Protein backbone atom coordinates (compact mmCIF):
# COMPACT_ATOMS: atom_id res chain seq x y z
CA UNK A 1 0.00 0.00 0.00
CA UNK A 2 2.50 2.64 -1.05
CA UNK A 3 1.27 6.20 -0.67
CA UNK A 4 3.34 8.63 -2.69
CA UNK A 5 3.34 12.30 -1.87
CA UNK A 6 5.52 14.53 -3.92
CA UNK A 7 6.34 18.10 -3.01
CA UNK A 8 8.01 19.90 -5.83
CA UNK A 9 7.92 23.34 -7.31
CA UNK A 10 7.32 24.81 -3.84
CA UNK A 11 8.50 28.36 -4.44
CA UNK A 12 8.84 29.09 -0.73
CA UNK A 13 11.33 26.27 -0.31
CA UNK A 14 13.39 26.92 -3.42
CA UNK A 15 13.63 30.61 -2.51
CA UNK A 16 14.75 29.79 1.01
CA UNK A 17 17.33 27.21 -0.02
CA UNK A 18 18.93 28.93 -2.99
CA UNK A 19 21.46 30.82 -0.85
CA UNK A 20 22.28 27.91 1.46
CA UNK A 21 24.85 26.29 -0.82
CA UNK A 22 26.11 22.91 0.44
CA UNK A 23 23.86 23.00 3.49
CA UNK A 24 20.66 23.04 1.43
CA UNK A 25 20.40 19.23 1.35
CA UNK A 26 20.74 18.85 5.13
CA UNK A 27 18.18 21.61 5.69
CA UNK A 28 15.75 20.05 3.21
CA UNK A 29 16.19 16.64 4.90
CA UNK A 30 15.37 18.09 8.32
CA UNK A 31 12.24 19.66 6.81
CA UNK A 32 11.24 16.38 5.18
CA UNK A 33 11.70 14.57 8.50
CA UNK A 34 9.31 16.97 10.22
CA UNK A 35 6.74 16.53 7.43
CA UNK A 36 7.07 12.74 7.58
CA UNK A 37 6.53 12.94 11.36
CA UNK A 38 3.21 14.75 10.82
CA UNK A 39 2.18 12.03 8.37
CA UNK A 40 3.19 9.23 10.78
CA UNK A 41 1.20 10.83 13.62
CA UNK A 42 -1.89 11.10 11.43
CA UNK A 43 -1.62 7.42 10.45
CA UNK A 44 -1.44 6.50 14.17
CA UNK A 45 -4.49 8.70 14.84
CA UNK A 46 -6.49 7.13 11.99
CA UNK A 47 -5.57 3.63 13.21
CA UNK A 48 -7.58 4.46 16.32
CA UNK A 49 -10.73 4.85 14.20
CA UNK A 50 -10.67 1.27 12.87
CA UNK A 51 -14.02 -0.40 13.54
CA UNK A 52 -14.03 -3.92 15.00
CA UNK A 53 -16.47 -6.72 15.78
CA UNK A 54 -16.22 -9.48 18.35
CA UNK A 55 -18.33 -12.04 16.54
CA UNK A 56 -19.14 -12.63 12.92
CA UNK A 57 -22.47 -14.20 12.04
CA UNK A 58 -22.49 -14.03 8.24
CA UNK A 59 -21.13 -17.08 6.50
CA UNK A 60 -20.28 -15.59 3.10
CA UNK A 61 -19.99 -11.86 3.70
CA UNK A 62 -17.05 -9.78 4.77
CA UNK A 63 -16.10 -9.23 8.38
CA UNK A 64 -14.53 -6.42 10.35
CA UNK A 65 -11.23 -6.94 12.17
CA UNK A 66 -11.32 -8.32 15.70
CA UNK A 67 -10.38 -6.11 18.68
CA UNK A 68 -7.14 -8.14 18.91
CA UNK A 69 -6.25 -7.29 15.30
CA UNK A 70 -6.93 -3.60 15.95
CA UNK A 71 -4.73 -3.74 19.06
CA UNK A 72 -1.86 -5.07 16.90
CA UNK A 73 -2.28 -2.15 14.47
CA UNK A 74 -2.44 0.43 17.26
CA UNK A 75 0.68 -0.98 18.94
CA UNK A 76 2.66 -1.15 15.67
CA UNK A 77 5.20 1.58 15.12
CA UNK A 78 4.85 3.79 12.03
CA UNK A 79 8.34 4.04 10.59
CA UNK A 80 10.10 6.71 8.54
CA UNK A 81 12.46 5.13 6.01
CA UNK A 82 16.10 6.10 5.61
CA UNK A 83 16.31 9.14 3.33
CA UNK A 84 17.31 8.47 -0.27
CA UNK A 85 19.06 11.24 -2.15
CA UNK A 86 18.75 11.35 -5.91
CA UNK A 87 20.21 14.40 -7.55
CA UNK A 88 18.27 17.39 -6.24
CA UNK A 89 15.61 15.16 -4.65
CA UNK A 90 15.38 13.84 -1.10
CA UNK A 91 12.88 10.98 -0.71
CA UNK A 92 11.48 8.96 2.14
CA UNK A 93 8.44 6.83 2.87
CA UNK A 94 6.24 6.45 5.91
CA UNK A 95 4.55 3.21 6.84
CA UNK A 96 4.52 -0.17 8.54
CA UNK A 97 6.99 -2.01 6.28
CA UNK A 98 9.30 -3.04 9.14
CA UNK A 99 6.63 -3.41 11.82
CA UNK A 100 7.60 -7.03 12.61
CA UNK A 101 5.39 -9.93 13.63
CA UNK A 102 2.47 -10.50 15.98
CA UNK A 103 0.85 -13.59 17.49
CA UNK A 104 -2.86 -13.80 16.73
CA UNK A 105 -5.04 -16.79 17.66
CA UNK A 106 -1.95 -18.93 18.13
CA UNK A 107 -0.43 -18.02 14.76
CA UNK A 108 2.47 -15.68 14.10
CA UNK A 109 1.71 -13.27 11.25
CA UNK A 110 3.63 -10.37 9.69
CA UNK A 111 2.10 -7.14 11.00
CA UNK A 112 2.19 -5.45 7.53
CA UNK A 113 0.02 -8.33 6.25
CA UNK A 114 -2.58 -7.76 9.00
CA UNK A 115 -2.58 -4.02 8.31
CA UNK A 116 -2.82 -4.54 4.55
CA UNK A 117 -5.89 -6.79 5.00
CA UNK A 118 -7.62 -4.01 6.98
CA UNK A 119 -6.46 -1.10 4.81
CA UNK A 120 -7.03 -2.66 1.38
CA UNK A 121 -9.64 -5.27 2.34
CA UNK A 122 -9.78 -8.88 1.20
CA UNK A 123 -12.50 -11.17 -0.10
CA UNK A 124 -13.39 -11.84 3.55
CA UNK A 125 -12.39 -8.57 5.30
CA UNK A 126 -14.21 -5.26 4.79
CA UNK A 127 -11.72 -2.57 3.86
CA UNK A 128 -11.07 0.45 6.06
CA UNK A 129 -8.55 2.58 4.13
CA UNK A 130 -7.14 4.41 7.15
CA UNK A 131 -3.66 4.91 5.62
CA UNK A 132 -5.02 6.60 2.47
CA UNK A 133 -7.36 8.66 4.66
CA UNK A 134 -4.41 9.75 6.81
CA UNK A 135 -2.42 10.69 3.70
CA UNK A 136 -5.26 12.91 2.48
CA UNK A 137 -5.76 14.51 5.91
CA UNK A 138 -2.03 15.10 6.55
CA UNK A 139 -1.04 16.43 3.13
CA UNK A 140 -1.51 20.13 3.91
CA UNK A 141 -0.25 19.99 7.55
CA UNK A 142 2.88 18.02 6.54
CA UNK A 143 3.59 20.51 3.76
CA UNK A 144 3.33 23.34 6.32
CA UNK A 145 5.63 21.44 8.71
CA UNK A 146 8.27 21.05 5.97
CA UNK A 147 8.18 24.77 5.14
CA UNK A 148 8.22 25.82 8.84
CA UNK A 149 11.18 23.55 9.66
CA UNK A 150 13.19 24.83 6.70
CA UNK A 151 12.30 28.43 7.49
CA UNK A 152 13.41 27.99 11.13
CA UNK A 153 16.79 26.58 10.08
CA UNK A 154 17.36 29.27 7.46
CA UNK A 155 16.49 31.96 10.01
CA UNK A 156 18.88 30.38 12.53
CA UNK A 157 21.71 30.26 9.98
CA UNK A 158 21.11 33.84 8.88
CA UNK A 159 21.16 34.90 12.55
CA UNK A 160 24.53 33.23 13.20
CA UNK A 161 26.16 34.62 10.05
CA UNK A 162 25.13 38.24 10.69
Amino acid at each position, binding site marked *: *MPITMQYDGMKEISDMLKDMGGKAEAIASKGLYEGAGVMANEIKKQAGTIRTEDFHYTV*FGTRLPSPEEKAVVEAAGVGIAKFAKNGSEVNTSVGYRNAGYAALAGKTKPIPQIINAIN*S*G*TSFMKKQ*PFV*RQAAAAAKAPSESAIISAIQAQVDEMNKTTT
Partner: protein
Amino acid sequence: MPKEYEALVAALKLTSVPFAEYGWKTRPEGAYGVVSLEFEAGTLSGGDAKADRAWEGSVDLFYPKLSDRTDLIDEIEETLAEICGDAWELNSTQYETASGLFHVEWAFQCLDEPEADADADHDAV
Protein backbone atom coordinates in the same frame (compact mmCIF):
# COMPACT_ATOMS: atom_id res chain seq x y z
CA MET B 1 -23.31 12.03 -4.04
CA PRO B 2 -20.80 13.17 -6.72
CA LYS B 3 -22.23 12.72 -10.21
CA GLU B 4 -18.86 11.45 -11.41
CA TYR B 5 -19.04 8.63 -8.86
CA GLU B 6 -22.55 7.70 -9.95
CA ALA B 7 -21.32 7.62 -13.56
CA LEU B 8 -18.40 5.39 -12.54
CA VAL B 9 -20.69 2.92 -10.73
CA ALA B 10 -23.00 2.79 -13.75
CA ALA B 11 -20.06 2.27 -16.15
CA LEU B 12 -18.47 -0.47 -14.01
CA LYS B 13 -21.79 -2.33 -13.89
CA LEU B 14 -21.70 -2.44 -17.71
CA THR B 15 -18.33 -4.23 -17.77
CA SER B 16 -18.03 -8.02 -18.00
CA VAL B 17 -17.29 -8.15 -14.24
CA PRO B 18 -20.28 -8.19 -11.84
CA PHE B 19 -19.92 -5.11 -9.61
CA ALA B 20 -21.57 -4.17 -6.31
CA GLU B 21 -21.28 -1.03 -4.21
CA TYR B 22 -19.60 -1.45 -0.80
CA GLY B 23 -19.53 -5.26 -0.89
CA TRP B 24 -21.50 -8.41 -1.60
CA LYS B 25 -23.84 -10.21 0.80
CA THR B 26 -22.94 -13.46 -0.88
CA ARG B 27 -19.59 -13.79 -2.62
CA PRO B 28 -20.18 -14.48 -6.35
CA GLU B 29 -18.58 -17.36 -8.20
CA GLY B 30 -15.71 -16.32 -10.46
CA ALA B 31 -14.46 -12.79 -10.87
CA TYR B 32 -16.28 -9.95 -9.14
CA GLY B 33 -15.76 -6.32 -8.21
CA VAL B 34 -16.59 -3.83 -5.49
CA VAL B 35 -16.71 -0.04 -5.83
CA SER B 36 -16.84 2.30 -2.82
CA LEU B 37 -16.86 6.01 -2.15
CA GLU B 38 -14.82 6.42 1.03
CA PHE B 39 -13.91 9.88 2.28
CA GLU B 40 -13.49 13.55 1.46
CA ALA B 41 -9.93 13.97 0.23
CA GLY B 42 -9.68 17.71 -0.23
CA THR B 43 -11.83 20.77 -0.60
CA LEU B 44 -11.54 24.19 -2.13
CA SER B 45 -13.44 26.59 0.08
CA GLY B 46 -14.54 30.11 -0.63
CA GLY B 47 -17.32 32.51 0.35
CA ASP B 48 -18.14 30.55 3.52
CA ALA B 49 -18.90 27.50 1.41
CA LYS B 50 -17.27 24.39 0.05
CA ALA B 51 -16.73 25.30 -3.58
CA ASP B 52 -15.32 22.02 -4.91
CA ARG B 53 -15.14 18.80 -2.89
CA ALA B 54 -12.81 16.01 -3.95
CA TRP B 55 -13.90 12.55 -2.84
CA GLU B 56 -11.71 9.48 -2.77
CA GLY B 57 -12.88 5.94 -3.31
CA SER B 58 -11.66 2.60 -4.52
CA VAL B 59 -12.38 -0.15 -7.02
CA ASP B 60 -11.54 -3.73 -6.07
CA LEU B 61 -11.31 -6.64 -8.47
CA PHE B 62 -11.18 -10.23 -7.24
CA TYR B 63 -10.54 -13.01 -9.75
CA PRO B 64 -9.63 -16.69 -9.44
CA LYS B 65 -7.75 -17.32 -12.69
CA LEU B 66 -4.46 -15.69 -13.60
CA SER B 67 -5.45 -15.96 -17.27
CA ASP B 68 -8.33 -13.50 -16.61
CA ARG B 69 -5.92 -10.85 -15.47
CA THR B 70 -5.11 -8.82 -18.59
CA ASP B 71 -8.62 -8.52 -20.02
CA LEU B 72 -10.35 -7.65 -16.76
CA ILE B 73 -7.71 -5.19 -15.59
CA ASP B 74 -7.66 -3.45 -18.99
CA GLU B 75 -11.45 -3.20 -18.98
CA ILE B 76 -11.58 -1.61 -15.53
CA GLU B 77 -8.66 0.76 -16.16
CA GLU B 78 -10.29 1.92 -19.42
CA THR B 79 -13.50 2.63 -17.48
CA LEU B 80 -11.61 4.55 -14.78
CA ALA B 81 -9.78 6.60 -17.42
CA GLU B 82 -13.03 7.35 -19.24
CA ILE B 83 -14.86 8.62 -16.14
CA CYS B 84 -12.09 9.91 -13.82
CA GLY B 85 -9.56 11.16 -16.38
CA ASP B 86 -6.14 10.65 -14.79
CA ALA B 87 -7.35 10.96 -11.17
CA TRP B 88 -6.90 7.27 -10.38
CA GLU B 89 -4.00 4.91 -9.64
CA LEU B 90 -3.28 1.26 -9.05
CA ASN B 91 -3.00 1.06 -5.26
CA SER B 92 -2.18 -2.59 -4.53
CA THR B 93 -2.12 -6.11 -5.91
CA GLN B 94 -2.12 -9.25 -3.83
CA TYR B 95 -2.90 -12.96 -3.79
CA GLU B 96 -5.03 -14.44 -1.01
CA THR B 97 -3.84 -17.91 -0.12
CA ALA B 98 -6.97 -18.57 2.00
CA SER B 99 -9.47 -17.96 -0.80
CA GLY B 100 -7.23 -18.54 -3.83
CA LEU B 101 -8.28 -15.17 -5.26
CA PHE B 102 -6.15 -12.48 -6.85
CA HIS B 103 -7.01 -8.97 -5.63
CA VAL B 104 -6.28 -5.73 -7.47
CA GLU B 105 -7.17 -2.40 -5.89
CA TRP B 106 -7.38 1.04 -7.53
CA ALA B 107 -7.92 4.36 -5.76
CA PHE B 108 -9.72 7.16 -7.57
CA GLN B 109 -10.78 10.72 -6.87
CA CYS B 110 -13.85 12.45 -8.21
CA LEU B 111 -15.07 16.00 -7.91
CA ASP B 112 -18.39 17.07 -6.44
CA GLU B 113 -19.10 20.42 -8.05
CA PRO B 114 -21.79 22.51 -6.37
CA GLU B 115 -24.91 23.32 -8.33
CA ALA B 116 -25.31 26.97 -9.26
CA ASP B 117 -27.28 28.86 -6.61
CA ALA B 118 -29.93 30.97 -8.32
CA ASP B 119 -30.41 33.06 -5.16
CA ALA B 120 -26.70 33.65 -4.55
CA ASP B 121 -26.97 37.37 -5.30
CA HIS B 122 -29.83 37.83 -2.85
CA ASP B 123 -28.35 36.23 0.27
CA ALA B 124 -26.56 39.28 1.61
CA VAL B 125 -28.31 41.10 4.43
